[in-house]
């Protein structure tokens, strides 16, 4: 036996390596299910998160958000017929009022399919920093697209969603006095979510148009 043979470690067989890899993966999956999912995502498949006190408590509003924000199939997708679009469900109407405390901001967004339309009007009791923008379903916050950005106290208009995702407003109170914002809209959106600067989210209930509400006063 040479000195090189004495120092060279025993080679590992492919079987041993496969067993080691499988064991490590199994260990990782167990840790994922026991600790990581409950602590990071509030998902507790084995009930170990609750037992170990690791469960991340998500506000009810956030839990509701995923259901509410999920596109409901093709229900609100436009079907183009020449100059008009048709939808398989009636549009929604919405009216909301927000009080922005000093230096606070809020975001209010609707879930729209690509090409779906809405009309809106909002008014603030004092000028606010405003950004009308959209966030595609894929891509996260980095993929947000600003549509209209300015400091103003009112705006009205329409939108044909350039992509499927959340579309709406960022309003920031630049001063030390509370500001009230009132907004109304109608459109083929299927969810409305309010995002506050303290990182809570609230799902707003949407209404369907009724003859009594939408008919002009005579």
């Amino acid at each position, binding site marked *: 036996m040479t000195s090189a043979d004495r120092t060279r470690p025993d080679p590992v067989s492919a079987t041993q390596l496969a067993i080691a890899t499988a064991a490590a993966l199994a260990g990782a999956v167990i840790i*994922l299910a026991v600790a990581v999912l409950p602590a990071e995502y509030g998902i507790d498949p084995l009930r170990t998160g609750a037992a170990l006190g690791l469960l991340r408590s998500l506000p009810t509003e956030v839990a509701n958000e995923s259901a509410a924000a999920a596109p409901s199939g093709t229900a609100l997708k436009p079907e183009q017929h020449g100059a008009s679009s048709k939808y398989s469900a009636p549009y929604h109407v919405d009216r909301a009022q927000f009080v922005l405390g000093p230096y606070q901001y809020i975001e209010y967004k609707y879930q729209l399919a690509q090409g779906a339309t809405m009309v809106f009007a909002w008014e603030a009791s004092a000028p606010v920093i405003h950004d009308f923008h959209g966030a595609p379903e894929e891509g996260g916050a980095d993929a947000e697209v600003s549509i209209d950005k300015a400091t103003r106290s009112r705006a009205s208009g329409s939108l044909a969603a350039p992509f499927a995702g959340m579309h709406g407003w960022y309003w920031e109170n630049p001063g030390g006095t509370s500001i009230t914002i009132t907004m109304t809209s109608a459109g083929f959106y299927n969810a409305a979510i309010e995002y506050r600067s303290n990182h809570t989210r609230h799902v707003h209930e949407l209404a369907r148009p009724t003859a009594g509400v939408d008919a002009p006063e005579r």
Partner: protein
Amino acid sequence: MFGRTFAAVTLTCLIGATTPTRAHDMFRFVGTVVKMDVAKKSLRMKFVENKKELVVDIAVTERTPIERDGKKASRSDLKPGLNVVVDALGDDYESLVAEKIKIVPPPR
């Protein structure tokens, strides 16, 4: 040899499994300075949330812009009692790093 390989693969898998993939969240705090520890680069501020007064410690790095009346300010300008608006990144209130600090007039 087998033991070392096993340990290395296990460690790699564990690190991969337990590393959070979630991005940090951005929080805004509007409140007053309790203390700015320049040596520890840590700002303690108090604010009101859901009618409760809370205190948080926020790391302030060299890259954190600090602004007062639209002009650049420094960490030593963050005196107790001053009103501030702090945008901070973190997973929760225990792990915050200031992204931007503005010294503002008190709310009316």
